[in-house]
């Protein structure tokens, strides 16, 4: 055995496109019911495409357990959301004469539940993931995660983002230290301050952006032109932070003598985003344009054929065409909406989701794989609720 196992990625855009198109279409036709099947199938594909040391990951979640978990979550959340929303709306309009307060309060009220749901979703996904036949797992601890996440967010906001690395590190450490592969526990090493260098570009963007806004709005208006530059710089810095924290955190993870090494590159991720979004916008835009042309052409043909029949070409004819089919245009609009929505989802899965996963997979290696010999299976975590809360709240819903 060599000293490091590299990771292959065998997913391809063609098959993944058809799979997500097919399942996405079924989801729309079933008013969202098929989404549990869609998510399961897309995950099975994506997991099996990632092959550390040549052995595919395996996803074993089932659609029906997701549906069950969702139903359980609906029973509990429906009360909470229905009643709480109504009371908040009432309170907000009685006390503040506006709905801003209601939305803000309702969002803040739901935040701990969102953190809770995210942890539970991760537990479900890890419990249904295997590699070399061995299960991953995550210890229960969702409420502990929820209040920690809420406090870390408060601290980060209070310090204008200066404590962001601390938040990212400790939340990841909380999750990682409760993660298992077989009977061995994962350990998040390192220190939160190692994440600071990754923040450099974000800081430059934020500080100089704020500076040029301050100078520009008070004395020298020309400085305002710098604002978009630093805005973009901040955007780049944000991606850089995400990629580099992932790299640093992963490379400081160990598990029973095994270590991980991640080497994702910000430039590659930026390129994937750039090319991906350009393609998605172009194709969806092109699709819209084609539909528009089609519609225009059919109207023109109708007018043309009316003219050929020697009918008088007058305003009334056009009037009758623009007036009558109200329900036709309504149906067309709804179909158009769904088509655009579907294509948007499918294409961003194929041109952004897949290449990103490929990049992160291909830059990941497992060091000292000899230690895998000592790993034994862990028992199955039944966890009937699955990711129901996350599904119902639309968080962590991406595959």
């Amino acid at each position, binding site marked *: 055995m060599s000293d490091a196992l590299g990771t292959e990625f065998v997913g391809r855009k063609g098959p993944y496109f058809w799979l997500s198109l097919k399942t996405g279409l079924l989801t729309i036709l079933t008013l969202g019911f098929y989404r549990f099947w869609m998510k399961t199938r897309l995950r099975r594909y994506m997991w099996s495409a990632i092959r550390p040391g040549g052995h*595919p990951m*395996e996803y074993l979640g089932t659609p*029906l357990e997701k549906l069950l978990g969702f139903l359980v979550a609906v*029973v509990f959340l429906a009360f909470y959301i229905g009643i709480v929303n*109504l009371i908040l709306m*009432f309170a907000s309009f009685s006390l503040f*004469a506006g709905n801003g307060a209601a939305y803000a309060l309702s969002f803040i009220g739901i935040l701990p539940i969102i953190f809770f749901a995210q942890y539970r979703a991760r537990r479900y996904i890890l419990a249904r993931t295997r590699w070399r036949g061995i299960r991953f797992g995550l210890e229960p601890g969702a409420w502990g995660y929820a209040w920690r996440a809420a406090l870390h967010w408060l601290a980060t906001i209070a310090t204008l983002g200066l404590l962001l690395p601390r938040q990212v590190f400790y939340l990841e450490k909380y999750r990682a230290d409760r993660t298992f592969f077989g009977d061995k526990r994962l350990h998040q090493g390192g220190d939160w301050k190692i994440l600071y260098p990754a923040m450099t570009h974000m800081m430059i963007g934020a500080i100089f952006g704020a500076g040029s806004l301050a100078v520009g709005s008070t004395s020298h208006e020309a400085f305002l032109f710098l604002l978009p530059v630093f805005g973009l710089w901040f955007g780049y810095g944000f991606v850089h932070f995400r990629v580099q924290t992932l790299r640093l955190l992963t490379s400081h993870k160990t598990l029973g003598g095994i270590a991980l090494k991640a080497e994702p590159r910000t430039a590659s991720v930026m390129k994937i985003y750039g090319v991906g979004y350009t393609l998605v916008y172009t194709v969806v835009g092109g699709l819209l344009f084609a539909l528009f042309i089609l519609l225009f052409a059919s109207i023109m043909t109708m007018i043309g054929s009316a003219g050929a029949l020697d009918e008088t070409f007058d305003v009334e004819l056009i009037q009758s065409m623009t007036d009558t089919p109200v329900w036709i245009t309504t149906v067309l609009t709804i179909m158009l909406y769904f088509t655009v929505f579907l294509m948007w989802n499918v294409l961003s899965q194929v041109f952004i989701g897949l290449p990103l996963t490929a990049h992160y997979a291909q830059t990941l290696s497992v060091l000292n794989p000899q230690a895998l010999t000592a790993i034994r299976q862990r028992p199955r975590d039944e966890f009937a609720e699955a990711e129901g809360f996350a599904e119902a709240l639309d968080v962590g819903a991406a595959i």
Partner: protein
Amino acid sequence: MTLIHVGGDTSEPQVFGDLLDGERALPQRVEVTLTASHLTLTPGEGASQDWPLSQLRSQPDQAHPSDLMLSLAGDPVTRLVVRDREMVRKIEAAAKSLGKRPPTQNTGRLLGWSVAAVASVALIIFVLVPAMANQLATFLPPSGEKALGDTTFEQIRNALDDSGFDPVPICESTAGSAALAKMEARLTENLDLPYPLTVRVLDHSMINAFALPGGYVVFFDGLLDVAQDPDEIAGVFAHEIGHVVARDPSRMALRSAGSNGVLGLLFGDFAGGAVVLFLAERLIQANYSQTAEMNADIFASETLEKAGISPLGLAQMFERFRELGGTTPDLLEHFMAHPDLMSRIERAEASASAAPFTPSLTDVEWQALKTICD
């Protein structure tokens, strides 16, 4: 893959696969041979095992174009990965039930929770939320209702817009607005309203009018176009004031705040949610306002009589709604809350007593109102 020939007499090359026993993280290299009824896995040392072909299952949705990941029916952990294309082809031809899925488990629990979920959502949307909305609406201070109305009005203007750029414009020609103000003054003369009315005409072809929280009464230009007599508009106007006085719009707004959240929960984000939410919500509301509509009609005929305006205008307007409803398949009209128009026509006609009536507007004023959007 290196092909290793053992001995000189074997015509078939040996094929190996990776066996994952689900106990240790170590793939075991086994020789894979296919017989008429079994797949035989032979490790380098130790006993070989026979997997019956009828029990072989393959994992679906796998990314690798040619690898085959096999398992045995009833065994959730053991896996065999075969990479040799020729062998994969042979196994796929020989094993007939590769695609068979394990039987559904937990059917009872699934059904139980489905019933529980439907029951709890129904309870909340149809019982709890309406009951709470009815109660809370009476406690809303007028300033709060006004704010709610302002917000909703802008949302509706944006939602009804066809062009996708600007909210639907408000019509306010000087003479038209004056005529509308006169009608308002006549109708509200004898009324004790919690707040002054805000009357608006929207430049939209829909044949309808509606009330919003905080005293909003909104007409669509389409309604003004089809009306042939000012008393018809006065009738609709009085009807909408009836909703305002009963605080129906505030109930509706509070109610939709509650039920919207729950519906959002159910449909998830499978299509941005917005369109489905809007339609589902409309259906619920149309069902909800039956009693409220009836009460508004009774209020309207009384108010019209007090103001010295013939309630027959209301009846004519309903007649017109019915005629139009019969001829234009306007999808949206089904969603607008207007239950059994016939009985309302009859009630309005019955209530038109022999009292002396004056038209709600003069001919000049009526023409000004009809052209308020021009």
